[in-house]
């Protein structure tokens, strides 16, 4: 495997380090539970984390494990193993990465700290159907039980009809029943508490976003990439809330002191698509032009893009069903497009960078819609280019930087005019 030129993202916040430690502790706890004989669940981010909290079930989220692998530039190795197993290069690179990791005979010592083989799979079709098929392969490989949660595709926008919520509540209850059958104890009070903490988590996230809109930007998207982790794995936990309280305080201070990521911020950019997790330094690359990537798509497709007022602890499953269905990652283009346009306006974005991961069946389709909507409604240009954020083998540093150079140069020229 050839080594590519990569650089880790430059973080500027103390809380990012705390979140990094929380990530390690999260996986260490799962490994410890496994050693004690507790079954480990592999699941996907839009199965509400709160359900696993209510069952005291250790769960690994399969859009996060590939990120852990990718940040250490190991994704190419595991993707190749999945391809050797017979998976096409057209299968999602995230899925190939966890598939390769799941079936690998050996894993690097670093990765062993994070890797706990699955005992149970809880799959879903939200946001993409192919994930459920990838999970079936893992279930077959390990000979373990598999449960599928069917989420209705949101064709209604932000107003989800009762019948859809009721259907998804039944699906979530089915997952709970399945896990109880496999030895877990369900505690409804804990679910209510978890919903309450989730609500607080998203309220804090929204407050954090409020401070991130400040000029100069107090936080880059490199920090944001780490900061969104609690939304994935720590939703409904006190630890998640505490981390966001700390982050909020840190940002308040920075904004009060007018302390930005850059001393002389000239451009504010947004990244749509998966940034190169193996080379997050690319997001810092534009800083030589006094440009900062203030926000990225990843930060709002991980389960926090909903109005927290919909969370009612007295109706926990209904709340979780509603928040999952209304999440912008549920494939309804209007929600996603509207959200990006709103973000571009509120964060005073000067340009949108769209990186296309060809093996994604969902996001590339949004690019054109978003490019047009952002230009028509806000007059902001978008540069779209190929960049697989997970498969390091596909990465072309020269071309990626050439695209960024040209785009930033044209934005600066427009500003001067």
């Amino acid at each position, binding site marked *: 495997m050839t080594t590519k030129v990569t650089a880790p993202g430059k973080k500027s916040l103390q809380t990012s380090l705390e979140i990094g430690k929380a990530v390690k502790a999260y996986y260490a706890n799962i490994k410890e539970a496994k050693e004690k004989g507790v079954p480990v669940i592999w699941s996907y981010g839009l199965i509400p984390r709160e359900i696993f909290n209510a069952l005291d079930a250790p769960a690994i989220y399969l859009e996060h494990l590939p990120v852990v692998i990718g940040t250490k530039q190991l994704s190419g190795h595991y993707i190749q193993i999945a391809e050797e197993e017979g998976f096409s290069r057209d299968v999602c690179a995230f899925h190939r990465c966890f598939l390769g990791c799941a079936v690998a005979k050996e894993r690097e010592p670093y990765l062993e700290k994070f890797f706990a083989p699955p005992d149970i799979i809880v799959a879903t079709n939200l946001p993409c159907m192919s994930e459920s098929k990838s999970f079936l392969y893992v279930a077959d490989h390990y000979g373990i039980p598999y449960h599928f949660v069917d989420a209705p595709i949101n064709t209604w926008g932000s107003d989800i009809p009762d019948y859809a919520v009721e259907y998804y509540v039944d699906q979530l209850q089915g997952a709970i029943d399945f896990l109880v059958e496999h030895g877990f104890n369900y505690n409804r009070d804990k679910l209510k508490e978890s919903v309450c903490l989730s609500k607080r988590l998203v309220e804090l996230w929204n407050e954090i976003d409020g401070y991130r809109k400040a000029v100069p930007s107090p936080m880059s998207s490199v920090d944001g990439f780490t900061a969104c982790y609690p939304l994935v794995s720590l939703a409904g936990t006190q630890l998640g809330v505490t981390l966001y309280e700390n982050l909020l305080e840190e940002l308040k201070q920075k904004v009060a002191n007018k302390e930005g990521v850059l001393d002389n911020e000239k451009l504010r950019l947004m990244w749509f698509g998966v940034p190169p997790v193996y080379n997050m330094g690319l997001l810092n690359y534009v800083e030589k032009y006094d440009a900062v990537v203030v926000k990225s798509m990843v930060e709002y497709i991980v389960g926090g893009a909903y109005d927290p007022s919909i969370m009612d602890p007295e109706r926990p499953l209904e709340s979780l069903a509603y928040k999952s269905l209304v999440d912008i990652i549920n494939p309804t283009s209007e929600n996603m497009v509207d959200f990006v346009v709103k973000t571009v306006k509120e964060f005073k974005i000067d340009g949108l960078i769209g990186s296309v991961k060809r093996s994604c069946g969902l996001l590339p389709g949004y690019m054109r819609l978003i490019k047009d909507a952002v230009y028509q409604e806000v007059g902001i240009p978008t*540069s779209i280019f190929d960049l697989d954020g997970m498969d390091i083998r596909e990465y072309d540093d020269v*071309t990626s930087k050439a695209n960024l150079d*040209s785009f930033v*140069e044209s934005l600066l*020229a427009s500003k001067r*005019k």
Partner: protein
Amino acid sequence: MITAGVDVGSLTGKTVILKDNEILAWNIIPTGPDSSETAKEVFDMTLKQAGLTMEDIEYIVSTGYGRVVVPFSNKNITEITCHAKGANWFFPSVRLILDMGGQDCKGIRCDDTGKVTNFAMNDKCAAGAGRSMEIMSGLLDTPLAEMGGLSLDIKNRLAPLSSTCVVFARTEVLGYLHEGTHKNDVLAGACEALADRVYTLLKRVGIEGDFVISGGIAKNIGVVKRIEQKVGLKANICFEPQIVGALGAAVFGRGILEKKTAKKK
């Protein structure tokens, strides 16, 4: 006021020396393994041709993939920005530029000053670039300069080629040749595939206004005719389409000098 632009591309190095608003000299050489050396070599050649020395040049702007390794440049600017500026110098009414370089291809939209308003580059594949034509040239044993003309002289029918991958296209060409397909028909297929690919790129940035093609493939009449047909616009091509980026760099140099002079006053 004498300025120079140096464009170190993936396949060729180019230099243009501009005196006020007139091209004094220009040169193109193949890019060697050392981009810095290529820049120096082509620059020295051009100086000599113009009867100038390095000290005579008041400002040098480098561009192209090798722009950052040109040790004697005062500033570097990306090739997309320079191509738009250069195309605007040759054809002030231009609003759409197709630059078909050695290893990549760009669709560029610009305003009346030559400022980039939108662009798109080809993805990580040489199928829309000069390198693909070089491969076909070798495979079909036809000089690059003759390929375009021959491709317009179809003997039987155009042999359709893959427009997605030059390596697969190579296999397809071999298949056609083994079947006895006439070389011209295969060349027509190669030019058509390239035109298809760049047309998609142009559609992405928006087809509108006066149109310029720059880069080496602008010399291939077979590709140019097919692109014109698809785009529905006549392509403006300058006397040497490979120097458009270097010229744009020299024009930027002049602009920078003019600003400096104005400030002093």
